[in-house]
């Protein structure tokens, strides 16, 4: 299951990443394996999405969200 497949309000726990370069950036922003992620909203045009992770809100594009694999 990928992060991009979650609906608004759904929660998942990060398992791993499919893209090394992206994973470095995401981890710096607090998206780590084991961290809980909740999709808080979707932009009016369907992309990007906003997630709640490690105590704050982060926005990322769907394509980027699809590199995050959830448990």
């Amino acid at each position, binding site marked *: 299951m990928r992060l991009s497949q979650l609906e608004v309000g759904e929660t998942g726990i990060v398992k791993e990443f499919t893209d090394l370069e992206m994973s470095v*950036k995401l981890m*710096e*922003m607090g998206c780590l394996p084991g961290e809980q992620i909740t999709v808080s909203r979707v932009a*009016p045009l369907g992309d990007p999405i906003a997630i709640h992770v490690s105590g*704050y809100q982060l926005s990322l594009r769907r394509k980027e969200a699809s590199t995050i694999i959830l448990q």
Partner: protein
Amino acid sequence: MDADLKVALVGNPNTGKSTLFNVLTGLNQKIGNFPGVTVDKKTGLCDLPDGRRAEIIDLPGTYSLYPKSRDESIVFSVLADKANPLRPDLVVVILDASNLKRNLLLYTQVADLKLPVIVALNMMDLAKKSGITIDVNAFAQKLGVPVVPISARKIEGIDQLKSAISYANRFALQEDTIDVEALAPQLIAQISKEIEVENPYYALQLAHQHETLKFLSPVQSDRIEELEQEFSFHSQKSQATETIARYSFINDLLYDTVKKHETAQEENISNKIDKILTHRVFGFVIFFAILLFIFQSIFAWSAYPMELIGDFFVWLQSSLHRILPAGPLVNLVVDGVLGGLSGVMVFIPQIAILFGFISILEDTGYMSRVTFMMDRLMRKVGLNGKSVVPLIGGFACAVPSIMSTRTIENWKDRMITIMVTPLVTCSARLPIYTLLIALVVPNRNIWWIFNLQGLVLTGMYLFSLVSAITVAFVMKFLLKSRERGYFIMELPVYRMPRWKNVGQDMYNRAKAFVLQAGKVIVAISVILWVLASYGPGNRFERIEQKYKQAQYTQHMSADDLHHAVASEKLENSYAGVLGHAIEPVIKPLGFDWKIGIALITSFAAREVFVGTMATIYSVEGDAEKMESVQQKMATAKNPDGQPVFTVAVAFSLMMFYAFAMQCASTMAVVYRETKNWRWPASQFVYMTGLAYIVSFITYHLLR
């Protein structure tokens, strides 16, 4: 004024770093550039309790020492390069207490560089509210550095922070965070030996960043590259391993020192606001309403101060002319330099207002929501959600807007934004449009409420947006990107704007604009003034002689005579000669040599057009009197008796100004931001080319 020690502020974005900077330095601050790069360098002085003075350097907010944007790349350079004159004696790392985990990542990186460090724990009140209790003493003990809880917004704990700064050790005493050497033992050892660095983490950072660091010599950089090959060092993998190691250190640290009470996840205010402001429908409606308001305010609020500034310079120029003896030097200073200066100064109100609004939108957190909403739309045309801000700002002035593109991390997105922003109808085009529209469009209402002239003007504004987006779309295919675009961005919680910050921002931006763009504008206006005031050979003398003859002096009033001389002189000046010279080129667009002069003189700044027209059609008084210019232009006839300004000519001229890069300050700022003359040059070529083609088509369609 010399400071006794240098202190750098380092922290994540949205941690209140700038607020703390303002609180520490007050009005004692200045904005400059970091040497060699165009990143705003904010420094200020702060008096310490022991009587010493600290120079505080506000470094750009960043999530890690591995840079994602141009602004961020400066942080490591300043902290690490021993030869950097800004290298701090002490680093104050600001941590958001309500989001410690992510904030500590940067701390651990800075700490491992083994510079003396102090931690300022900001937003303690927010943390407490969300049920987080921090054992500050245990926290400080574990890190081995002084930790000062503060609230920058409420100005709490600032005195304690100042004394911590003054008592800070000159040596780095912090505990190690991770085993840096284990990440790449041989490589670190070899770099440390060959480049003579003592700190292993510094050596590792050199390995990661050697391609972009300016302080490494090419030989050193190549050698590091060789070593990386030799020890098969993979930068990304090493970064990933390092980040995970750092987080595991942080987790251990937080486990012992921070307690989070599980409060029922109640919906916070920020979330409620977001539900409305990023709503499918209301989101866009509100956004456009805010835009409209900003847009209106920029015009409405700046009109009066702009007029005052303009009047002040007119008064200054005429009184100086009266006081000082007439002569070429006085003319150059008063007409050339002061004329140029007034051209710069009149934009201060608009720039200040625009930056005031941008500052409010950013401070409240709304700007990142706009980016969030618009990203998909903007991406389709080769831009980025973050391009919205400069494009909107372009309605006021391209200069500050191009400066604001620095927040766009992706190189290609940023370049396209810079390239198309000057197409957006800026305020300097407004006087030209109003003049020409009033000239050829009848002032009547259609469909009862819509004024035809107003509609045409609105049309010009919309048209400029469409053309900017179209050009961006084309450039998307022309520019080759070296890096991947991504859009990982924090959406900060909504906050009230800090009005003091907004005020300081307006002041600082206006000052930077006057000092930086001002130099170029003044230089070019001096050149243009010389071109318009002197002619080849003895042409000017002959004109003076001619008008001294009785047939003129007896039949014309002193004023008329003066203007007749002035306009004939202009025709025979170098600018006039140039105007005649380019006439064959601009003839197909419907322009004669007089318009040609205006095109040349308004190269430096579009608004000079009206002034030049006033001089050419020798209007009484000065360029301020727009109506009289309009009358003269309306009655102007070609040698064949036809009016000069037909609908075709006026629209062709408007199209030319819509597209042509007639703005020296924009070109200067594009050069400053790109550090390469190819960008402003190609921008000039493509815009002027487009202007010519579109004007040509317009003229021939309407003729």
